[in-house]
């Protein structure tokens, strides 16, 4: 799709396509700078918190868009994240090594992805029901096997990236983060590149748009779907690992709290592109960061109303953006080989 446009690389085309986005970006930048010169400390705190809150959302959204670009709806991201959060935590308890714990979470996510692929590609289950099975199963399994009173070696702390972290404003916000947050930012660019600039990405999108045509030219539809759903699951697993290994440091029942579903709204808001999802996730992260700021500021609003903000935002985003976003044509349709 993209390449057909890029044959006319004029400034007019650029303006037509990215003009609004550029204008919006400049506006946001100006706003940030304005607040930075007003109160640099608070601005940095809010922005850094936005980046960290956005991490599980952008990872979840990457999982969702890899699935849906390949034609598989995944509403089980929540469950995949929860399972991975739990296993990441348990591996941390057993080994005391945070990096092995991440691996545990990622592998758990991949296994959950395999399960989802099995249900939606092989069994051709309705994918919405398949996702619900994953969510309920994850809630049950983590609730059953979770014991209180376990101790861990703690959680990841921020690793400042040398001189980069010294840059005013950008440094403390982007280059002074714990590892999974870095990984999320890197993954955004990796997935963007893979999806739109490689053969693999072209095949993935072909399978999601018109599997019959893809099959005719020799692309293995089942394989591409399995691979993308499993890889997506691994990324959702990283999001789960973020929760127990980087954000909180321990496990709680249902600790994902709907993030897997908010991630779906993030994916949609970002128009099924990783870079777009990153922007959307930062926006959601910002609303969450503001939530904390509001509570600190002592504004006399019941905490339940502040707690509703992310969920309300999700509904508003969905209501405003569905229908305006082009969904992969074969999304949610199981492929039957002839």
């Amino acid at each position, binding site marked *: 799709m993209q390449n057909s446009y890029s044959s006319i690389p004029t400034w007019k085309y650029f303006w037509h396509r990215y003009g609004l986005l550029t204008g919006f970006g400049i506006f946001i930048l100006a706003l940030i700078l304005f607040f930075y010169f007003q109160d640099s400390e608070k601005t940095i705190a809010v922005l850094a918190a936005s980046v960290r809150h956005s991490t599980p959302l952008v990872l979840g959204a990457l999982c969702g868009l890899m699935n849906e670009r390949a034609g598989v709806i995944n*509403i089980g991201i929540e469950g995949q994240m929860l399972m991975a959060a739990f296993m990441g935590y348990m591996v941390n308890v057993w080994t005391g090594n945070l990096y092995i714990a991440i691996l545990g979470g990622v592998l758990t996510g991949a296994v959950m992805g395999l399960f989802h692929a099995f*249900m939606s590609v092989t069994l051709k289950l309705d994918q919405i029901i398949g996702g619900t099975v994953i969510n309920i199963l994850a809630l*049950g399994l983590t*609730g059953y096997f979770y014991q209180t009173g376990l101790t861990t070696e703690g959680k990841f702390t921020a690793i400042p990236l040398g001189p980069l972290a010294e840059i005013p404003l950008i440094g403390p916000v982007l280059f002074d983060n714990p590892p999974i947050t870095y990984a999320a930012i890197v993954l955004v660019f990796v997935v963007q590149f893979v999806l739109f600039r490689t053969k693999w990405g072209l095949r993935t999108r072909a399978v999601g748009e018109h599997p019959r045509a893809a099959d005719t030219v020799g692309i293995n539809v089942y394989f591409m779907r399995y691979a993308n759903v499993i890889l997506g699951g691994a990324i959702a697993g990283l999001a789960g690992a973020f929760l127990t290994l980087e954000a909180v440091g321990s496990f709680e029942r249902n600790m994902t709290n709907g993030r897997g579903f908010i991630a779906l709204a993030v994916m949609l808001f970002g128009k099924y592109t990783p870079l777009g999802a990153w922007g959307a996730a930062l926006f959601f992260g910002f609303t969450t960061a503001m939530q904390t700021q509001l509570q600190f500021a002592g504004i006399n609003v019941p905490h339940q109303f502040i707690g509703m903000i992310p969920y309300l935002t999700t509904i508003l985003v969905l209501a405003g953006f569905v229908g305006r976003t082009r969904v992969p044509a074969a*999304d949610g349709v199981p492929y039957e080989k002839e």
Partner: protein
Amino acid sequence: MSAEQKATSNSGQHQERGWLYKIWQQVNIPLAAVFFALLIGAVLLVISGANPIQAYAALFDGAFGSMTALGRTLEKATPLIFSGLAVAFAFKAGLFNIGAQGQLLFGAITAAAIGFGVEGLPAYIHAPLALLGGAAAGALYGAIPGALKVYTGAHEVITTIMLNYIAINITDYLADGPWKDTSAGNIIARTPEIHETARIPAIAGIPLGFGLAILAAILVWWILSRTTLGFDIRTVGLNASAARYAGIRVGFTIILTMVLSGALAGIGGAVETQGVVGRYQPGFNAGLGFDGITIALLGKTSPFGVIPAAILVGAMRAGASNMQFTAGIAKEIVDVIQALMLFFVSADMVVRWIFRIRESGEEEKITLSSGWGHQ
């Protein structure tokens, strides 16, 4: 069992078989799903170092072992029938109402508010009034995702889940703020106790609410199979564009379905408040709406299938506490078994393949993913 197996081994000729065979065709997959779920549940119990036979015995004993146990099972099953009906009813229109939980919470707290806030009414007005209030609250809350789907295209799965979280926050706020129980000594978030006139009593050990649930199932069956509305709903569920072409107001039908589905869930919450809890307390209704999903699918989205499915899940909920108490097994295993039941009943292909069950060919397949961004 052997008679039915003989029946399956004969080929074709559905019409000439008796009603027993028809029932068997409806229950074979759910029964197999329950069996497999219990089997895998037993494996998990062994892994976690427990004795599955002892566990299941305690579970059964706590659910059916005595008259009190049986009463408790029916009591647990009552709101579950309502939430199961809510989900099953929406299914018929191709809608996946995961928001039964939120609608149920609003029903529960509204019934509580009418129950403690209104005074001096005779019981035969007060109790139905609270029940209707719960139904209305659930209906309104169900209308939101319906309208969002029709007017903006937002898929109900995400909006209803978000609305569940919002419902938890709002009801928490109400129970901890304006409607908090301010009697001496209370520090926790909960509403005052409802008046005696708003209570739904039990007659001879059987909760009256259970009878209401059965009536509701009959009503849902009647709407779906004997009215024009029911025909519209089923047509929209099977093929929305064909329905539109045939002159059915698809948007209107979707919103009305969500309203009725929400009302059912709301009554479920009201019955729980008026018949069991006696007030609204955050956390007391947790999971009732989600169980509705398993129940609706286990009951094959049929109103009369929902009743035995809800009794089964209610029995597991009632027996779980006994299992935890006598066998020392965390009651969350019941959630795992339920999720497995949900998997096996929806992955009927697996079950059919293992048991060599033929497809009956009369089933209406409903796709839920059709509205996902595509209109």
